[in-house]
């Protein structure tokens, strides 16, 4: 195995009650990468990421995380290396206060008490939760609860962070905060795997996209390459990002030449300006 790889999935098959939900999955995620897994509901995305910390074990094939075979390693050991943030924060919050909630995982992993305190303080500050530290997690707003659920995972410093639908049900401001957080995690050299339907979020924040449909990976590659293929996105039942769709329409109407690549609003404005001048 390559030393650079955080997660390697080889010929993975998985079934629930004899129904095949993952078919021949092959995937390599490098350390420090932000990879986004996309696809329609029921494509197998969440099933796939549950293999990364051993919650699910392969029926066939292998999942290797930082050199550990997940079928041989207990969840409690894998969880120390792979932080998993679930879609709905309400399923995981339970402590009486916000600070206790963050300390839970740290204590589960046996951090010394002074380290627990320091890490809790750090997380409360970074996630802007310090003014709620003594409050019950259930009294926070949905955006705050989401931040708390992420904080309670990031606090124990796992090298790999897996986020299931981080932007679901979040307003624009909260999305921006989550985006900032991803940037921070990237600076911290974390490997990030995201599952999302939010194409606008994915196009800005991922290094690489993995498209799934019917339990299979139908395409994977650099974000731009995948996002510019309207055909591929349709197969995964995703609506292309607005900027890509606009460029596509302009090219089809021969307003813009078909060979130029447009990825950001800036690209689009420049391309239009050039063509208007010409």
């Amino acid at each position, binding site marked *: 195995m390559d030393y650079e790889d955080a997660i390697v999935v080889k010929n993975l098959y998985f079934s629930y009650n004899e129904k095949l939900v993952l078919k021949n999955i092959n995937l390599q995620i490098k350390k420090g990468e932000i990879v986004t897994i996309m696809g329609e509901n029921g494509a197998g995305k969440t099933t796939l990421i549950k293999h990364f910390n051993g919650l699910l074990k392969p029926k066939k094939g292998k999942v290797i995380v930082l050199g550990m075979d997940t079928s041989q390693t207990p969840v*409690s050991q894998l969880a120390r290396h792979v*932080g998993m943030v679930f879609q709905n924060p309400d399923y*995981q*919050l*339970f402590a009486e206060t916000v600070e206790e909630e963050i300390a839970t*995982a740290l204590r*589960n992993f046996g951090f010394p008490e002074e380290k627990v305190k320091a890490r809790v303080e750090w997380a409360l500050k970074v996630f802007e939760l310090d003014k709620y530290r003594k409050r019950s997690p259930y009294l926070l707003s949905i955006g705050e609860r989401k931040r708390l659920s992420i904080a309670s*995972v990031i606090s124990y410093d796992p090298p790999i962070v897996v986020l299931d639908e981080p932007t679901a049900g979040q307003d624009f401001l909260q999305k921006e905060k989550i985006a900032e957080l991803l940037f921070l995690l990237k600076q911290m050299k974390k490997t990030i795997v995201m599952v999302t339907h939010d194409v606008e979020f994915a196009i800005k924040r991922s290094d690489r996209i993995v498209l799934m449909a019917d339990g299979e990976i139908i395409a994977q590659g650099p974000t731009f390459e995948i996002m510019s293929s309207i055909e591929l996105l349709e197969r995964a039942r995703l609506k292309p990002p607005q900027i890509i769709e606009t460029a596509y329409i302009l090219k089809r109407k021969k307003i813009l030449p078909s060979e130029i690549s447009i990825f950001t609003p800036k690209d689009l404005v420049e391309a239009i300006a050039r063509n208007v001048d010409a």
Partner: protein
Amino acid sequence: MLEGFLYKPKESPLHKLDPRSKAVILVFYTVASLIYLDPIVLVLLLLSVVLLSIVGRCVREWSKSVKATLTFALVIFILNVLASPGLGYTYALAMSLRFLSLAAAFSLYFLTTPPEALALSLEAAGLPRDFTLMLTLSLRFVPTLARDLQIVTDAFRSRGLKLDSGNYVERLYNFAKLLTPLIVFEIRRSLMIAEALESRGFGGAVKPSLYKPPKMSLIDYMITAGGLVALGVIVYYHLGFPQ
């Protein structure tokens, strides 16, 4: 274990029966299991439920629930032997057989009766709608609750909570932690459902009509009559005529 008490759609004579006629038979089994203390009678009752489960084509699902209740039956046996040593092993055996035959009969009833049909016939029999809705909702949410528990368990294991190692006290303590989010989540869900029901007119002044009023067939009437007679006979022989 709960799986053995949930409706499985199938084609069988038991599935076709009206929930009310089946309920009469269920009452017969319940009363019979409660008034007889003879292990032989209780074994016969249990065997007849086995036969019925073959007729209902759900032996596999049914045996799952019976297997799960065996542990409880064993606990009941041990507790009875310890708590009332004067009554002997036969009494303890009867107590656990009684529990088994009750569980077996109820499991078979719920395996072959769709909750909606049960609620409809209860409503047709004059029970208030709030009550029948409570019944269908509680049955309907068993699989949802099981799924929620799985999600909560996954979320906690992902944060390093050990549920599969350590001694029993530790494990029990760790399992108790799952209850807080689960209860909070279910309360929130029930509030959401209540609001959704109200916004669709539930509890309005008009008594709603039934889309498909349940109908008893000739066989249903015969079974109901037979069940009532059998019930009368065992109660008569057990208690005697009221003077």
